[in-house]
Structures are given as C-alpha cells and as structure tokens.
C-alpha cells in the first residue's frame, strides 16, 4: 500500500483532536475520508504531511515519512484549502513558485493551468478568483509534479454541480492511473459516486475502514417495498412472522426484518398478487450518520 497512517495522535492542550488513528490508502482507488465536522480530518491530513507535529504515531508514503521526501510534489500532491493563496499574486505565478520549489519546469505550470481550464485567467490576480476557480487552481498545484499519491481536503467545496462532476472525473481518472487518492468530504452523496474505499472517523477515532459497499451493507438499512391490491392480508401474515411493517399508502408498504424472497413466499402462501417487490438499500448518508452517531453516543457515555 502507498500510504500508511499508524497510531497517529494529536492533542491541542487537553483536547485530543486525533487519537491513535490508523488506516491505509491503497493505489488504484479513491479512498473517501469521512467524518462529521470537527472530527479531525484536516488535523489528520496536516499531521500526515508534517505541518502539525503529531504527539504520537506516523504517516508514511511508500515507506517514507513526508519530511524525508526530497521533492515531495513529485510524490504526494496535497490540497488542504484552496484559499491558501496570496490574493495579490496571479494564478500562474502561484503555480510558478510552487513548481520552482521542487525543480519543476515553468512550462509544466502552464500545462496544468490548461488542464484545469484556467489558462484564460492565469494572469489575473487571485483576488478576482471565485472559490471554484481557486479549487481548480489548487488541483492544478496537486497535479504539478504528477505525484503517486493525492490528498485533498474538501475539494468539492464551493464548486457548482458541473465543477463537482469535473473534479470527480479527474480523481477517478487519477485513481485509474494507479494512484492513491485520499479525499475528505462532507458531501456524502458525492463520496458514494466517487470513492470505492472508505475511512470513517468520529471525534478523532477510527470508526471503520472498509469499502463503500461493505460500509453501507453493514450500517445502512435494508428493507423491502411491497405493493399489492390486497396488502392488508399480507401485512397480517408478515406481522405474525415477526416482521415490522409501515404503510406508505393504501396499497404500498415497507417491510423491515424480512427479505424479498420471504415476503414473496408469504404472498404466495396467502394467494396475494404482488405488483411490486423491491429491496431498498439505505444511502451512504444514512449509513454514515448511523455509524458516527453510535460512536458519539459511546464517547458521551464514557465521559
């Protein structure tokens, strides 16, 4: 694996921002980094690249600490906040100082500027950039050194729907090239479309690392939607067998605690015609809220 985070702990005074956090980021997929606001995602990222000193633990990139990378932009591209620019500088000059610091030729700065669609405004001062334009510029900076690892903190922030789609396509493409991509976001629906793997944290602690599919399966609700002209008979039968039923309208119900085959078998036994029989899976958002709520309860109880 490309990125290993092991036992990372960061305290600010008495407050534990990140506690004994371990996870890994593998090449070839986009790994979503999920957590409620204030859960320590940005702190983790800052510790990973040595901006903040962790109290314990470490992060390594292909076995090396970030501080040991001679020209880090060639190995790890990081965008923590698109607002980390000097407003008086032009977008092109921002990329040029960044490029120069790692011995990257000036023409590469122009290349990535074109890549993110900012070539027309490259000479304008960053004061005039919208947040979406700054996000694009930030991504250009990440791509400057063609790194094997990409780390982005809330990259979709401030982008319009088209911009969000664009950044998603870029990241999925980069992952497809075999790179390791770690993206934090609070836009969970976005994450569901983009990420394959997930690292979920709450209050600085790892809740779980898994694939998106496993995570949803484990924490998301699954239920069966059934429509039938004689739905009342079916409800009677299902309740007897221990399932929980909610009416959606006169002929449609949601069944919890029974699988679609079980509902179908029951309907056949009572000779009830079915007009719909669908297994419904809860969204990533539901799963995420459920998973983090449990940790917060646990933490509250432990206090």
């Amino acid at each position: 694996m490309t990125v290993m985070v092991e036992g990372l702990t960061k305290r600010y005074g008495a407050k534990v921002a990140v506690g004994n956090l371990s996870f890994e980021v593998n090449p070839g997929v986009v790994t979503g980094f999920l957590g409620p606001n204030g859960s320590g995602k940005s702190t983790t990222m800052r510790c990973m690249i040595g901006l903040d000193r962790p109290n314990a633990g470490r992060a390594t990139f292909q076995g090396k600490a970030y501080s040991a990378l001679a020209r880090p932009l060639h190995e790890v591209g990081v965008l923590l906040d698109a607002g980390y620019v000097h407003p008086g500088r032009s977008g092109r000059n921002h990329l040029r100082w960044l490029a120069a610091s790692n011995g990257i030729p000036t023409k590469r700065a122009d290349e990535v500027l074109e890549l993110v669609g900012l070539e027309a405004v490259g000479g304008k001062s960053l004061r005039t950039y919208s947040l979406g334009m700054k996000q694009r510029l930030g991504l250009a900076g990440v791509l400057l050194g063609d790194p094997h690892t990409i780390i982005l903190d809330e990259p979709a922030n401030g982008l319009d729907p088209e911009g969000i789609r664009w950044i998603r396509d870029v990241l999925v493409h980069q992952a497809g090239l075999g790179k390791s991509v770690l993206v934090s976001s609070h836009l969970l629906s976005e994450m569901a479309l983009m990420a394959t793997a997930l690292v979920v944290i709450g209050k600085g602690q790892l809740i779980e690392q898994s694939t998106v599919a496993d995570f949803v399966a484990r924490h998301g609700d699954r239920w069966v939607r059934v429509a039938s002209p004689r739905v009342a008979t079916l409800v009677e039968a299902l309740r007897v067998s221990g399932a929980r039923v909610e009416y959606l309208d006169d002929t449609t119900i949601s069944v919890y605690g029974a699988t679609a085959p079980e509902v179908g078998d029951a309907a056949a036994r009572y000779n009830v015609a079915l007009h719909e029989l669908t297994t419904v899976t809860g969204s990533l958002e539901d799963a995420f809220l459920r998973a983090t709520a449990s940790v917060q309860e646990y933490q509250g109880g432990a206090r």
Partner: protein
Amino acid sequence: MISTLRSEWIKLRTIRMNWVLVAIALAFPLAVSALFVAFAEVGSFDGADVFGLLSFTTVVTTMLLGVVGATTITGEYGFNTIRPTFAATPNRLRVILAKMLVVIVVGIVTTAVVVVAGLSLCTAIASARDVDIDLGAVDGLVEASVGLVVFGTILTVFGLALGSIVRSTPAAVAALILWPLLVENIVSGILGAVGIDNVSKWMPYGAGTQLWTLDSPDAIGGLTEGLGRVGGGLYFGGVVVALLLVGCVFVSRRDA
C-alpha cells in the same frame, strides 16, 4: 537549495507591494538629498553634510527594507501560504535560509543604488550650481558608504527575524519601528536612571548605526565613544543573527 531560492525569488517579485516599498525606499533619500543640494544656500554645506543627510534619510530606506524582509514570512502566515510552502519544502530551515539570502540581495542592491545614485546625483546638481562638494575630501566616506549598505542589509534580516518570531505583519512592523525609535532609548534611559551608565553603546540598533557614521567629531553620534564602525556593525549583526536563530527555532517547533 537552488530550487528553494528560485521559488522564494518568484514569491518576492510577484507581490506588488514589495516593488512599491522598494520604489519608495529608493526615491525618498534621493529626493530629499537632491532637493537639499538644489536649494540650500551655496556655501552652507560641504560633502560631509551631503553624505550625512543622504545616510540619515536612508534610515527610511532601511526601515522599508526591514518591512520587505518581515513580510516575506509574515505574509505567508497571514495568507496561510506557509502551509503549501512547507508542504513543498518540508525542510523549514532551508525555507528561512532562502528567504534570508533573497532579502539580503534586495537589501544590498537597494542600498547600494541609493548610495551610488545619491552621491552622483548630489554631485551633479552641486556642480550645476557651481558648488564643489568635494566628496574625496570627506574622511571615511567610502567606509561609511559600505557601512550604509551593510546596515540596510542587516535591517532586511532584522525584519525577517522579527517576522519569523511574531508571525504577524502588524506586530513585526511595530517591533521593527519601535525597537530603534523607542525601546532602545527607554531601556538605556531606565538603566541610566538606576545608575547603570554607559549602556547606550550596547543598544544593538544604535551600535549598528555607527556603520554609516562619519568619522568627523560633529557627525551625529560620533564614533569616539561607541563600539566603532566594525565593532558596532558586528555587534548589531550578531544580535540580528541570534534573533533569526530564535525565529528559526520558533518556525520549526510550531505547527504551521
């Protein structure tokens, strides 16, 4: 190191405020000295007076250079570009060193231009008025001129040092101005009042000004009772280097 230097140079030259500061730093002493030589009563001034005025107004230049030095680091903290900077160059001491070398070049070039252009301009204006200010007859002119360039250069590093300690532009600029104008006088005044005499020569900035003080007895401050040109310069330079080392420790230790 070359990459970091190139990067820091790009940063410095792509901030318009730096050009404005350097332009004022160049224009102020040149304009004041030229106006003086152009309009002062003929026979009321000689070469030592011209250099005295030029060097004294160059104090403004050196202050502005200090601001340039300070903002190379405080501006980065202010706009948070310090984070991409340290992400691109994890070796923070290398970043500070590169900033120091870049502002030293700016300091040398700016003050050297002020001295050379100022003296040439004043000589030209004087000779147009048929006045011979005879700079060759001024004792210690070359030494004091070199000293002025060194002084301006130390001030840029002084600004960088203060900036890396306090991290905020207003605080760094305030410290840069109040230290020479107020703090040194107050400290030596208080120490004098409690009976500790002869401390003013140990005030670093004051000692540093001897770099450009002429040898003549009527020159401001005079060189007779202080640490001398070389001694005062080394002492001030040493204090500034010590401050920069403190700044380096702070920058390395603190979370960016």
